[in-house]
């Protein structure tokens, strides 16, 4: 194993790129690990190597962060899938903490293990999807998935598309679809006009984002796209793939049907807390920040020493707020490692702290719009599959709750909900809400204990080449 890094950053989205840049510029030995082949994250995602996509505002913002990163001296490990985390506080009782350990799978398939004294987690979010009849039909994809297809791959999710769910991504996706040549059959927005009106003052903090949102809306109006406020998708239907989507006002009333070959739907973003759960950090439930989030101080420190979280993984605030958060985390790490003294740290953090605060105002308003909407959970039909990996329906979850399951780990045991390869990332929100209804809230329902691997890992990668004699079989069990 090589000499430990001062700082390892996981995830090269805007928070991770900025964190690695800041730490490396100040002389720390930094490694940034990213699963994708290029840095960028979801919003600033780069096109695959060899693809040239016409630039937009996001591309330019991403390029600036990428350029700074490239010049910073941080070691960039792309295409690295991090599956194992350890070290830090995870030692035997009484032993001193050790460096953090990171197990990753590079593109060549030869596993690597790195060590770092401080660890900055920039894992971002995954998309919340509250199940409805037909959500498992091919052709139904996430809103975030649609942006990746459109912006990074340059591929249309469908030729005639219904866009549904909550948050600004709805309009971003719809506008992009139109521009790229798709027909947008309808937009079904869960938010009321009133909710959007109430969000306006906060959006004024970032006039650039506001202007862009208004431009999207104008494009939709010009093209005569039906924008249905306060509407929910009640079913996706079709034989073998989605062919039509049924939409209904959330207050009830007549449903409308829209023919389509794709449905792009998302019910908000959920902070990815797998890594902080693995380290047994303190978490709190913050609905308006997307769900369970690690408890953070103003400098992005987690309750575990030398562990930091930046970006939406610490609570949804949007890509614009992420770089400043990344810089704050990096500065805190350097302070805690003794690279920066108290005065230098206080001076250096002033600007990112202010920037983060400002961008977070707008981000928070959008996060609120994307927060979990309990009515969607109430509407899940008994026979609807909630956990796709294990084929667990709402009715099966309710029966397990009748049988005495009182929290998420127990629900998992009683039903296998969340035990499959996605490890509850897709079903976790809906399942947790169903538990919460019975036990009096998400805090009581808890969350599934963090487990490794963080993502399914091919056995081949763990095994490597070995002889039987190399296996360090422990002393035999007693006879």
């Amino acid at each position: 194993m090589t000499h430990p890094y001062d700082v390892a950053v996981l995830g090269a989205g805007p928070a991770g790129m900025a964190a690695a840049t800041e730490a490396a510029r100040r002389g720390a030995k930094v490694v940034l690990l990213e699963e994708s082949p290029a840095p960028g994250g979801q919003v600033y995602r780069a096109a695959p190597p060899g693809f040239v996509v016409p630039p937009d505002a996001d591309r330019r913002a991403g390029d600036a962060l990428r350029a700074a990163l490239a010049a910073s001296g941080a070691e960039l490990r792309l295409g690295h899938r991090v599956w194992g985390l350890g070290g830090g506080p995870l030692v035997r009782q009484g032993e001193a903490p050790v460096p953090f350990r990171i197990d990753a799978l590079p593109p060549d398939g030869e596993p690597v293990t790195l060590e770092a004294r401080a660890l900055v987690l920039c894992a971002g979010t995954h998309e919340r999807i509250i199940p409805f009849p037909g959500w498992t039909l091919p052709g139904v994809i996430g809103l975030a998935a649609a942006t990746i297809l459109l912006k990074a791959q340059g591929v249309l999710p469908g030729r005639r598309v219904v866009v549904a769910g909550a948050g600004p991504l709805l309009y971003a996706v719809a506008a992009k679809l139109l521009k790229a040549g798709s027909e947008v059959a309808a937009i079904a927005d869960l938010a009321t006009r009133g909710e959007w009106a109430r969000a306006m003052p906060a959006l004024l903090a970032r006039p650039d984002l506001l202007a862009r949102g208004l431009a999207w809306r104008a494009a939709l109006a010009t093209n005569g796209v039906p924008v249905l406020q306060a509407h929910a998708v009640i079913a996706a239907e079709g034989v073998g793939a989605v062919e039509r989507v049924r939409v209904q006002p959330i207050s009830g009333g007549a449903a409308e049907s829209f023919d389509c070959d794709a449905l792009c739907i998302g019910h908000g973003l959920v902070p990815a807390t797998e890594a902080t759960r693995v380290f047994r950090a303190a978490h709190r439930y913050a609905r308006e920040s997307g769900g369970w989030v690690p408890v953070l101080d103003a400098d992005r420190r987690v309750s575990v020493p030398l562990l930091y979280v930046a970006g939406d993984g610490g609570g949804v605030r949007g890509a614009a707020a992420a770089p400043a958060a990344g810089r704050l985390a990096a500065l805190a790490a350097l302070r805690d490692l003794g690279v920066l003294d108290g005065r230098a740290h206080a001076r250096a953090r002033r600007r990112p702290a202010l920037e983060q605060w400002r961008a977070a105002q707008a981000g928070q308003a959008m996060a609120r719009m994307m927060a979990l909407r309990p009515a969607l959970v109430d509407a899940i039909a008994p026979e609807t599959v909630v956990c796709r990996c294990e084929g667990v329906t709402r009715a099966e979850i309710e029966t397990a709750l009748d049988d005495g399951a009182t929290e998420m780990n127990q629900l998992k045991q009683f039903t296998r909900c969340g035990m499959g390869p996605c490890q509850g990332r897709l079903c976790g929100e809906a399942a947790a809400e169903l538990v919460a209804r019975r036990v009096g809230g998400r805090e009581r329902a808890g969350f599934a204990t963090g487990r490794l691997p963080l993502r399914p890992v091919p056995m081949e990668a763990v095994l490597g080449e070995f002889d039987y004699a190399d296996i360090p079989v422990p002393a035999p069990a007693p006879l």
Partner: protein
Amino acid sequence: MAFDVAIVGAGVMGCSTALHLARAGMRVALLDRGAICREASGVNAGTLTMQMTRAALIPYALRAHEMWLRMAEWCDGGHVLAVACPGLSVAFTEREAAMLEERAKARRAAGAPIELISGGQAMEIEPGLSDRVLLAGHCPIDGFTSAYLTGRAFRPALLNAGVALFENRAVWGVDREAGRFVLETETGPLQAKRIVLAGGVWLEEMAGWLGVRLPIKVLINQLVVTERIRPVMRTVLGVASGLLSLKQYANGTVLIGGGWQGIGDRQRGGLAVRAENFRGNVRLAAHTIPALRDARVVRAWLGLEAETADALPAIGPIPGVDNAWIIGSVHSGYTSGPYFGKLLAQAVAGEAPEMPLFPIDRLLAMEAA
């Protein structure tokens, strides 16, 4: 008002003891600081194998095997998807073959119908097996459960039998007043005429409540599961040393266990997988069933196992404290758990148990020495 008996710890042994005592007519309180069967009883590898059971426990494990397979009949329909299948314990080296012979002999003497067969014969029973096996112990009585279902399986039967089940109610200590036990709990005192300590790795602390010093070792066992894959095996597989347990469930997932150690302790529970042991365990598994190379690992976790100084169970009365009993700390305790609970219930109810218990006097004497 006092319960006839308070049982502290709702794992498989506490649940079985509670169920049998309630059916014998006692008013039973079953308390756990967490949810039913959420610790070792709910996260273990669900192995019902004789070839990993200590020789002295074989007669018990054989009876428990039968109980697991017929659980629905005695547990009001509750079950753990128990499957009966042959078991193989394999040796890859001459040294392991010698160990296997010795161990098979001892277990056979204790009543497990284990025969030694060649690698070739083993491959006829288990076509997925590596062709590098020199010798195998074959036991037609073997099988496995889905241990994660254990709490769900016991719960309705306990309630039907009238057990007062108090989940998420931690016990802090025990006083004795006027011939009764007063359990100090999170939500107030609870009185009982008798007490059964069934707290797994936390038995050491519990025994301390009654002034008894009983050291309990804590093992932090690692487990690994793959995602659903095509059928690659149809037996329960182990190795001569006992450091592998391997089975494929009906849903296609393959569970890899064997007691490789992770990081954790009694206070904080299982904390982290030890990377080198994770790799060692799965290498041993893939060496045994080569088709596992093709699978993906979905999850690894840790379960705490209790062990006494002589690695034999602690089941019986607590010396010097009338009406106090202890049950637990069994190597492969899940395998024999329901039967041990039944036996202790017989003793607590004043009957002669149908098989001998494992009183702790021997352990206390070792500790005093």
